[in-house]
């Protein structure tokens, strides 16, 4: 295996070497992306997000230890692991939602397209318009369906005229697979929808500001199996346009929707690699124990 990226080369000597190996193999996106690529050569542009030595502290307590992870563009990456293992914490580092927790402290670097998100020049408000987020519990604003989707474009000035805004709302709802269900009641409250519909509305709201990355924090944990299936289908459709990172408790879900999986345990990234390989041939015994249901 050849590493061309200087950082990746440096990491070969580090403890994260096996992880990097796997990253390299998944980053050859023969199966997952449209761009054909040969010989497993890693180019930095294939990775949307690169995390190096990310540590997170909540007050005195360290929640995340030296996470090194590359997240490929235009594919779905799943974070799995038992509760409290740091996967949501890491996810929230990517769009700096941890800034809202006064005691949280983040070290290390997370780069999106080579630019550090924690750099002083990066405005978290702008960052979050590039990195959308979907939460565990569907959290539409207590406003109409239209206003929910239109809010983001409005505050970011993406639409100046009403018909532009309407077009954005319509295309976002269509992308989220919700248009047919709500087209005739756009001006009814978003909170009146079912749980699954609300979650898709929230996804539409995230899409509306045309982000590059969509972070999903256990998006199906509050939904029934049918609604879950719809969301998973939607995630599969969206990955052609967005870099999607999903935290999930369900290993079956990770297996179904993701192309790459990262396993977290006790605040450490234990292993990451192509989903298929992770589930059929995990390297670390802890990963094996977790995915076979021996703990977690």
């Amino acid at each position, binding site marked *: 295996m050849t590493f061309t990226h200087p950082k990746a080369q440096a990491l070969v000597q580090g403890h994260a070497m096996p992880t990097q190996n796997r990253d390299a193999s998944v980053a050859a996106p023969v199966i997952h992306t449209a761009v054909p690529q040969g010989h497993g050569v890693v180019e930095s542009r294939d990775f949307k997000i690169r995390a190096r030595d990310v540590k997170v502290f909540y007050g005195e307590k360290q929640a995340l230890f030296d996470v090194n992870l590359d997240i490929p563009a235009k594919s779905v990456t799943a974070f799995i692991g038992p509760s409290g293992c740091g996967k949501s914490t890491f996810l929230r580092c990517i*769009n700096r*939602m941890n800034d*809202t927790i*006064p005691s949280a402290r983040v070290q290390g670097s997370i780069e999106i397209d080579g630019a550090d998100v924690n750099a002083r020049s990066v405005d978290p*408000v*702008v*960052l*979050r*318009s590039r990195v*959308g*987020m*979907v*939460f565990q*519990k569907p*959290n*539409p*604003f*207590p406003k109409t369906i239209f206003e929910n989707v239109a*809010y*983001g474009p409005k*505050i*970011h000035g993406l639409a100046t005229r009403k018909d532009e805004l309407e077009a954005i709302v319509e295309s976002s709802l269509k992308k989220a697979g919700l248009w047919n269900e709500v087209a005739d009641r756009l001006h009814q*409250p978003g*909170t009146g929808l079912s749980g699954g519909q609300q979650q898709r509305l*929230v996804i539409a*709201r*995230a899409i*509306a*500001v045309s982000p590059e990355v969509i972070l999903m924090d256990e998006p199906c944990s509050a939904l029934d199996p049918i609604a879950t299936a719809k969301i998973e289908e939607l995630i599969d459709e969206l990955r052609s346009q967005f870099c999607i990172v999903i935290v999930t408790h369900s290993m079956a879900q990770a297996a179904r929707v993701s192309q790459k999986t990262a396993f977290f345990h006790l605040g450490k990234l234990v292993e990451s690699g192509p989903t298929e390989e992770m589930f059929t041939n995990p390297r670390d015994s802890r990963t094996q124990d977790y995915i076979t249901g021996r703990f977690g």
Partner: protein
Amino acid sequence: MTDAAINAGAAPREQGPRPQLSAAEARLKKRYRSEMWFKAQGVAAIVVAMIFLVVLVGRIVAQGYTTFETHSISVPVYLNPDRIDRSALDGVNYDYIVAEAVMKKLNIQDDDLGTTSGKVMDLVSRDLGFQLLDQIKADPSVIGKTIEVTGPVKADADLYYKGEIKRSTAEEDRKLDNQQLAWLDQLEKDGTVKGGFNFGFFTKSDSTEPEQAGVLGAVVGSALMLVITALIAVPVGVLAAVYLEEFAPKNRWTDVIEVNINNLAAVPSIVYGLLGLALFINWLHVPRSSPLVGGLVLALMALPTVIIATRSALKAVPPSIREAALGVGASKAQTVFHHVLPLAMPGVMTGAILSLAHALGETAPLLMIGMVSFVPGVPEGFTGASTVLPVQVFIWENASERAFHERTAAAILVLLIFMIVMNAAAVILRRRFERRW
């Protein structure tokens, strides 16, 4: 043998669980008993509270409802040009002219000492005399003509008509003698005096004479003062609460501020009066006993309550809404003002209106800033001399005339209705702003 063995084995087992079951049943019964006992105590507490409330309100209504009925007298008055000096209209004894007209009605003559006319004057409000003066000033050509004037009877006469001064009381123990009572009976019989709703109570301001005293000045004073209080306490309180809750870092300074706000909410209100006296009147020279200074003092007093209520309303907004807004890239201020504050609005409104209602009923601090004064008129704007409802109650309660006592109760009723209206407004606003999430 096997059957017997089985039976033998089964029998004690059947008996076995029974005592256990009954022990469980007994425990269950005990639990239900304690629950019943607790519920009974709760109901008893509510009954006691209701009794207090009913007695309190019932007492006030029983004492005050008579105020809303009053008796007025209508007499034709001959404006004798010989008695009215056109060059000094204010100096004319109009009360005597009215008394003459009433005596004419009663078919009696004044004696040389004027004792009879004096007694008649004790029955008729001076309001009629003032009406004559006003009419003459408006149109001097009425002098020499006979005009009809209508006005309240004196408070004591009114009390007699309402049965509160009784003929059965010994003559020397009541304010009206037998002759006056006979005149009153005669006037009522021939229709000169009529009972009716006391509109004057709502259209007049304070007066030294009970029959002319009303609450209009106090109501207007209270309303003007509340406007000042609301304009200061609500925006300042809400903004302070939003900053402390949403923007301020959590450190020792904000802890100190928070503790102090909570302490300020518990400071006795009269201390705010002293503060207002020193700060607003002595230092800033705000006109004393004006709605402006009263409103400023009450705004200081209401501020901590508004802040505390707003903060708890903001705390009650689910964090998922904040995350949702931040997640689509809203700034902190946009998150607060587009989403969090609108959702907290019902709680903010309720807190604000309840603290204003509290301010409306406040008396002690206003005594310190000179609002306990006799103000016989509607306040002229925010800086004019004024009184307010609770202080009006306080003033009338201290008055010696008996008729003021029923007016005290009536003013309390007006105050209570004012408060009920405000609280109803709080409920309606809360319903309107309430949204589910």
